């Protein structure tokens, strides 16, 4: 079995079979990660560059761990800011790095489309670790793995994503991926934080009404509210946001979804988009997501990398 895609740029046009293969492969790596020696030789001799143009802690560490546990050689490159600000073009950066003979590039960048652009500048395999507000496919894949582990199947599963959908690459990747997998996905937030043209996301329902979004949901995912959005006039105040869209135990109970899996891609604004008792409660999968992140990224690296011919032992 192998993937139809050559790079992981996003989940928008990734077929169901590929997503299923990645999730199934990640299952195998979850088992590897539970061993005493959490390392397999599948990426031995391969060099992976983690190219981060935007601050990131967990995603970068997660990728780095995934690469190391596959025995790949890893190099980290971090630089904040665009080409214009840096004084070196992105193309020059990637070509210089490629000249050092590398195999795969994991890239995060504040501009949407950069992973796609890199496929035009280099022959390396490109994995998107977040581009602008466009996509963050490995996050959505680890989310789907976490959901599937809890509820068995994604098809028909009611998932509610609540918060700043407009600026969220996590939401977009989940919208594409979960729609492909046939989940019953609802997105919810203030009208000004929802993309104006939601009809493009087939199979996704949107509402401003939190109670409707939560009703009988099996998964509730809160997204980080960036505090600076308030000053750009997108919503009146943190206080109003919390009152209308904050995830609390009472809201969950009222909507009949006290057993819903609680997720958050982090970092959390405790007491704003989600209360601490819910984030740390018995149904919280927030740290499980982080653990699954490593297994999922191992699966993606393994399936896209040259280690394709080896099996996950």
């Amino acid at each position: 079995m192998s993937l139809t895609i050559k790079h992981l740029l996003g989940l928008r046009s990734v077929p169901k079979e590929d997503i299923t293969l990645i999730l199934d492969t990640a299952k195998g790596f979850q088992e590897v990660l539970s061993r005493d020696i959490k390392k397999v030789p599948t990426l031995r001799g391969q060099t992976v560059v983690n190219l981060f143009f935007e601050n990131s802690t967990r995603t970068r560490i997660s990728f780095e761990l995934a690469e190391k546990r596959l025995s790949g050689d890893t190099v980290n490159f971090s630089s904040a800011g665009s080409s214009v600000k840096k004084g070196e073009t992105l193309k020059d950066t990637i070509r210089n790095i490629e000249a050092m003979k590398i195999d795969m590039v994991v890239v995060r960048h504040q501009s949407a489309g950069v992973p796609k652009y890199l496929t035009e500048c280099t022959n390396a395999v490109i994995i998107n670790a977040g581009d602008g507000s466009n996509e963050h496919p490995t996050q959505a894949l680890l989310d789907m793995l976490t959901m599937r582990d809890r509820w068995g199947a994604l098809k028909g599963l009611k998932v509610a994503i609540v918060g700043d959908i407009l600026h969220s690459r996590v939401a977009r990747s989940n919208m594409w991926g979960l729609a492909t997998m046939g989940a019953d996905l609802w997105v919810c937030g203030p009208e000004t934080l929802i993309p104006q043209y939601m009809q493009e996301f087939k199979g996704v329902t949107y509402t401003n009404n939190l109670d409707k979004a939560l009703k009988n949901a099996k998964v509730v995912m809160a997204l980080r509210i960036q505090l600076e959005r308030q000053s750009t006039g997108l919503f009146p105040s943190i206080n109003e946001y919390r009152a209308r869209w904050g995830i609390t135990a009472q809201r969950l109970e009222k909507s009949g979804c006290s057993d819903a899996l609680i997720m958050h891609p982090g970092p959390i604004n405790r007491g704003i988009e989600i209360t601490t008792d819910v984030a740390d409660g018995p149904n919280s999968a927030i740290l499980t997501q982080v653990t699954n992140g490593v297994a999922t990224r191992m699966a993606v690296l393994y399936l896209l990398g040259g280690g394709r011919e080896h099996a996950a032992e």
Partner: protein
Amino acid sequence: MQQNNTILIKGGRVISPKNRLNGVIDVLIANGTIEKTGKALNIAADRVVDAKGMYVVPGLIDMHCHFREPGFEEKETIQTGAQAAAAGGVTTVAVMPNTNPVVDNETVVKFIMDRARDAAIRVLPIGAISHNQEGAVLSEIGLMRRAGIVAVSEDGKSVMDSGLMKNAMRYCTMDDTLIISHCEDPGLSKGGVMNEGRISSMLGFKGIPKIAEEIMVARDIMIARDTGARIHIAHVSTKGAVELIRAAKKDKMRITAETAPHYFTLTDDIIVNFNPNHKMNPPLRNKEDVEAIIKALADGTIDAIATDHAPHTIDDKDMEFDQTPNGVVGLETSVGVTLTHLVHKKKITIERMVELMSVNPAAILKIDHGQIAQGKRADITIIDPSKPWTVDSKKFRSLGKNTPFEGMKLRGKAVVTIVNGNVVYEE
């Protein structure tokens, strides 16, 4: 640009709607002037151009170009821009004032006109409405007019202070100076890198909504109605803007409008490829807008096709989509794109194309061009309407290779360009 040789253009189909010429007619050029037109002229000439099967039309006029000089000569100069125009069959261009320094006083106007003297085609400057395009105080509109500008424009942005815009329009009524209005409300467009719509929602890009354009079209129509000024709406890209202009024309207002070839051919769906050569302002819109613009070109609501030729260096455009500057080149593709997508598809007639690309821009700019008639300056474009070719930016004469039409297969091309009786381009 003086030429004493005589040229006889034989056997071509002359299309000059202003004086209702349309048929196989020969044209004799002498001393830079159209000496004679007539059927089967049997006159000796220094040069005979066989135009059988070709359209012989009044020299094309592109009233919205950026030649970047002074200040950005790495992107284009008046010389290279004029070469590109000649290769596209264009004999006159009007160039926008967003140079460095901005064209806001007669010294800069004179500099451009001086450079233009050696150019292959006619280059006419447009002045800024406000000093340094800052929207605070008026530029020296009257002195620039006397020095040779054909219009004023704040191209690249709107004059956001409606009071200043009203003053500019009233001031311009004195000399009947044309105001070319770039319509964009920055409160709505700020941070936007593409059309706001399905695709921007999908890709997570901040969009430039259509209403950012339409609000300012509506405002400028209202100010023009109040002041009696003559306005021209630049690069119309939306159906809503077309409707506003149509209504204003119905009210007999002195308003004209232009659009660019990319607005009647391409839509924002193409942005999923993140190609910076599809990034311009206003941005590519939707199918309904393309259809409305084609209809407006046919029914007279839009008067002119202008390319908004905006050259950038390869390096300027070879980076992150949202970081690249706006703008695409157009001079060397406008004839081919217009013939292929409008004339050959029977959306407009060839006569209408000549109106849109020569007769009307001449009338709007009040310059004595745009017709093939005895005694007129000999600016003539010969077009092979069926010549097949593929857009290849490597062959452009423009320094800007940033075309949105790369690789597009077209039918029809300018093959001879004559300015003031001189052949400035032929293939």
